[in-house]
């Protein structure tokens, strides 16, 4: 299948007063139509910066330093903000983490959704815009949309606001949806509803989705493919089954082991020692080496390349090099509920 989004060797730097932060380092991946790709990582691993870079929503201090972004086969790396305005909403849309602040508090919800409809169809008559807004509100599961059209964001609960944000994102039938921690700010029960909605939309409209999350549980419920990010790099990428049942990178092992759900019966949770490195001066070799009990000497000298495990499964660890000693993964395999 032809990929809809292709990221090649993308690097993003943030110029902060304390030094230059290498937030995204040499990231490549593809996104195919109709699939859900999840990007998993801890805070500060650059997953949010990566998404913002794709849509060119980076703050002024952050710059794309290298690499290319192909959307629909077109190189948009050097597009200006004006050019991007034509793509945003139409080709790709963004759903933000915090629905409480993402909506303008002084404009009624319906009008804010209508604005998104009008961006790409400025000549649409008022009545049709209204009908389209109602349709969108129904699509994202806002009941009694005609009554709620004129309400302000403060009348809405967190879950309702996130639904409204999704209606805005879907206004112009985008082909790609970037959902940046869409459920993190919500309660568990609401989170489940929003995840259901994401899946429903994805099936109904066939929108390709990039789902950013720190929660392996959330990702498990929605993702077709999973990419694990650490210290600005993708360290492992594969289908959900491959990553969950046959993880190859020690960081993935560590993440899974520290989950209480997979630790039933253990006296203690397994933890990853230490902390993620600051990305002002990333370490010379593998950034994860100093927290990795399986680290090899070479990890401290040279960054590992992406090793191929299958056509869809890749991981960046020297353990996959033929010269490396064989290690049995401490976790993996199918489980019974």
């Amino acid at each position, binding site marked *: 299948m032809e990929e809809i989004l292709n990221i090649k060797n993308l690097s993003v730097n943030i110029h902060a007063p304390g030094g230059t932060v290498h937030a995204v380092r040499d990231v490549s991946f593809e996104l195919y139509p109709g699939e859900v790709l999840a990007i998993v990582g801890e805070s500060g691993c650059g997953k949010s910066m990566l998404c913002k870079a794709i849509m060119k929503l980076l703050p002024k201090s952050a710059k794309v330093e290298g690499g290319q972004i192909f959307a629909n086969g077109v190189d948009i790396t050097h597009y200006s903000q004006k050019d991007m305005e034509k793509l945003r909403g139409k080709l790709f849309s963004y759903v933000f983490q915090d629905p409480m602040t993402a909506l303008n508090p002084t404009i009624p919800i319906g009008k804010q959704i209508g604005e998104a409809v009008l961006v790409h169809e400025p000549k649409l008559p008022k009545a049709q815009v209204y009908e389209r807004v109602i349709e969108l509100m129904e699509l994202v599961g806002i009941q009694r949309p005609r009554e709620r059209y004129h309400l302000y964001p403060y009348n809405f609960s967190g879950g309702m606001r996130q639904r409204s944000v999704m209606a805005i994102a879907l206004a112009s039938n985008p082909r790609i949806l970037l959902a940046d921690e869409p459920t993190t700010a919500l309660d568990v029960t609401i989170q489940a509803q929003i995840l259901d909605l994401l899946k429903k939309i994805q099936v109904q409209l066939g929108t390709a989705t990039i789902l950013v999350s720190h929660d392996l549980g959330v990702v*498990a419920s929605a993702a077709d493919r999973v990419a694990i990010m650490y210290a600005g790099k993708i360290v492992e990428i594969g289908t959900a089954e491959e990553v969950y049942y046959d993880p190859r990178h020690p960081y993935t092992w560590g993440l899974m082991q*520290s*989950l209480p759900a997979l630790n039933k019966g253990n006296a*203690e949770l*397994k933890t990853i020692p230490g902390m993620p490195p600051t990305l002002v001066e990333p370490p010379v070799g593998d950034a994860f080496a100093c927290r990795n009990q399986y680290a090899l000497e070479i990890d401290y000298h040279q960054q590992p390349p992406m090793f191929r495990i299958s056509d869809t499964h890749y991981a960046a660890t020297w353990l996959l090099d033929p010269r490396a000693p064989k290690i049995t993964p401490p976790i993996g395999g199918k489980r019974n509920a």
Partner: protein
Amino acid sequence: MPETLLDVEHLSHVFRLSKHAHIRAVDDVSFQLHRGEILGLVGESGSGKSTVARCLMNIYQPTAGVIRYQGVNILDRREFARNRKMLETRRQIIFQDSASSLNQRMKVADIIAEPMHIHHIKPPRGSLREEAAYQLKYVGMDASYLDQYPSELSGGQRQRVAIARALSMEPELLVADEPIASLDVSIQAQIVNLFKHCNQEHGFSILFIAHDLAMVEFLCHRVGVMYRGRMVELAPTAELFGDPRHAYTKALLSAIPYPDPVIQKNRPRVDFEELEFDREGAFTEVTPGHFVLQEDRR
């Protein structure tokens, strides 16, 4: 029967917002905390679990109810004043890591030594600084952090400092109000292990407030579920997770995402309609140790 450390009876707290509006943040909540146990308190944001914690620490004066700590009614001004020093050293609280959880203008050493400083306690290990270094080591950080400011630490380290400060008084009861909510998964695991260690090795009793049910299931001996100010269910962990009785608990448990794509994608989910909630029910013991808020059948 284990000794009861903390006894909460019919606790209610109402916030008055204006002449016409008030919130029943906590509504007729009763539970006991035994010595040496970890009691989890879960619920969505605004369910009143933090308010309970603050009432236990005398930060809020509840509208109604009784809280007894080792038999001392802490809500009675005179009883509180008589046992003030005991209460202030034996109970400690840990907040969620945020910009305001530690004073940005104090060094780590001073933060940890603050309670000893307040109570003029002679440090068992020589100077206050050495005592701070000892506590810091206990929570897994070395003495080089003593002269740093909170802004120079990561979230997990700040939370360790907060725990070290609480532990420096060798408390019996630790109230932890969402201590892991803003931390990363791998750091959460470290902090949870630390709590478990404190409980197993030193017998601290812990009231652990969280919204992450998986962590609560791993750490706590008993769990209470709160919804809109009411306690809807309270049971030993295995029983609550294995045999939930209240509709809200069922919905909550079914909503926890399980980190396994096949299992998670095929799991049924139970919905809970807000309108179904009957807040006037009675909190009754259905099986020994298992309490459920039941419909009032008057």
